[in-house]
């Protein structure tokens, strides 16, 4: 594998013209949510960028993130894998099988120690490591070993970033996020279930272009993609302001494309790029297709009180708790009332009549 050649050299060798390169830079800038005025800088950086080795480990996951990535359209997956990065290990996508897989992993780790980019999808079971093993090696051991030589770690998908669905209550496997285990490496969370493919490649492109991870939010997500609130960027927002809501999925409001807040949309507390980047080559996104946002790029989205319950409703049974309060209040209230009554009666019984003589006596003494 040619790790020492720059990307510019590699592209020229493949007969890609400068025009093609500029086009690539323009779409890359767009993908990284950078201003078009950054294109010349990106071109200069990419020209001299070295092709990094990428190792992808899959733990407790559903392969949805890989499915998403392979549908990434800019640049195409082929371009991404063969030209821009060197994907040295990926269970699902690699040709090798059996021991060859483990060999490829160890070779890549050894050859690029300290330099490779580690991509992880899926959560790690720490309750009992046996819940998920690869070639008899627990996910926990494999992650800690691979993380040692990594330049940086990208947690792909909500499972790797925050624990995701395996972490959902009651979390039978004791699933945790990558960042719960690895503390001494830069980690970036590309959350989503799955993440927007362009966001995955965008983060890789950013690492490739600038050699470091991009600016992150409080949850370790790249701000360029997760800095915006779905609700704020939603094209249905004006209906929210006007108080026009779909009440069911097939009423007049739903047909007119009104706000989906009442149908459980979690857009107001979800940070992701769906509203602008959209899905399937910018065709549409969940809210545009008539379904509220599930909040899949947020931690614990599975336990946010139900996908179809609106955000302002409690996650507990408030009637039940209120009934408990009522029963307790009634019991204590009756008791307190009885006590007060007794006190009052006692006071009345013990009341002594005071005469003017008593008062005079009191004044003299």
């Amino acid at each position: 594998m040619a790790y020492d050649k720059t990307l510019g050299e590699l592209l020229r060798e493949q007969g890609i013209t400068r025009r093609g390169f500029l086009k690539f830079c323009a779409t890359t800038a767009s993908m990284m949510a950078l201003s078009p005025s950054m294109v010349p800088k990106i071109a200069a950086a990419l020209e001299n960028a070295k092709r990094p080795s990428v190792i992808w480990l899959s733990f407790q996951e559903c392969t949805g993130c890989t499915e998403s990535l392979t549908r990434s359209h800019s640049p195409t997956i082929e371009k991404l894998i063969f030209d821009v990065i060197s994907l040295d290990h990926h269970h699902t996508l690699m040709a090798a099988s059996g021991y060859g897989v483990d060999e490829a992993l160890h070779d890549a780790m050894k050859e690029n120690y300290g330099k490779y980019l580690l991509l992880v999808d899926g959560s790690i079971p720490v309750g009992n490591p046996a819940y998920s093993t690869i070639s008899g090696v627990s996910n926990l051991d494999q992650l800690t070993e691979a993380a040692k030589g990594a330049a940086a770690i990208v947690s792909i998908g909500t499972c790797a970033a925050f624990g995701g669905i395996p972490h959902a209550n009651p979390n039978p496997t004791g699933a945790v996020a990558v960042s719960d285990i690895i503390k001494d490496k830069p980690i970036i969370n590309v959350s989503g279930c799955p993440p927007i493919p362009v966001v995955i490649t965008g983060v890789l492109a950013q690492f490739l272009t600038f050699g470091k991870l991009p600016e992150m939010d409080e949850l370790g997500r790249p701000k360029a993609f997760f800095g915006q609130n779905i609700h704020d960027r939603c094209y249905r927002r004006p209906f929210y302001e006007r108080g026009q809501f779909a009440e069911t999925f097939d009423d007049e409001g739903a047909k007119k494309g009104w706000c989906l807040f009442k149908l459980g949309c979690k857009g107001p507390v979800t940070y992701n790029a769906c509203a602008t980047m959209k899905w399937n080559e910018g065709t549409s996104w969940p809210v545009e297709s008539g379904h509220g946002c599930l909040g899949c790029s947020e931690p614990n989205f599975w336990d946010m009180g139900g996908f179809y319950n609106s955000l302002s409703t409690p996650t507990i049974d408030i009637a039940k708790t209120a009934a408990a309060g009522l029963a307790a209040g009634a019991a204590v209230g009756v008791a307190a009332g009885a006590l007060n009554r007794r006190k009052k009666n006692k006071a009345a019984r013990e009341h002594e009549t005071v005469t003017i003589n008593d008062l005079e006596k009191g004044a003299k003494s």
Partner: protein
Amino acid sequence: MLEHMATDSNACGEGDIFTGNVAPILNEIRHALQRLLDEDQTTTIDLRGIPMGPGEEQHLESLLGTGEVTATIDAMGLSTVIETSLAGVWLVVHRNDNDDILGKFIEITRNPTILESQTEDMHSALERLPGILADYS
């Protein structure tokens, strides 16, 4: 593109929802065009960074219309460069080998950079010319 628009509007009809972002973009274009004339400064607007409702982008494109120049570039997939009915306002659409749209930009410029011959490419052309000459003679 026009065909696409027609089917889209048939399919969506009343369902088209406008975010109201078209007017600010048109205003941005207006200022950029003024800047181009006054200071010879070019501007690029990335349409991906702007929220659009269903059918809204097509609406913007139809407002801009098609002008005198249409060019296609075959580099890592097709790209189309169209001068809109407004001179100096170009619509650049990049596609990959699978014809998927990679990016859509509005460029306010006399001449989109991507159309110009690139220095690096001219160098390699110069390197190739002696060979062609040798074959010819």
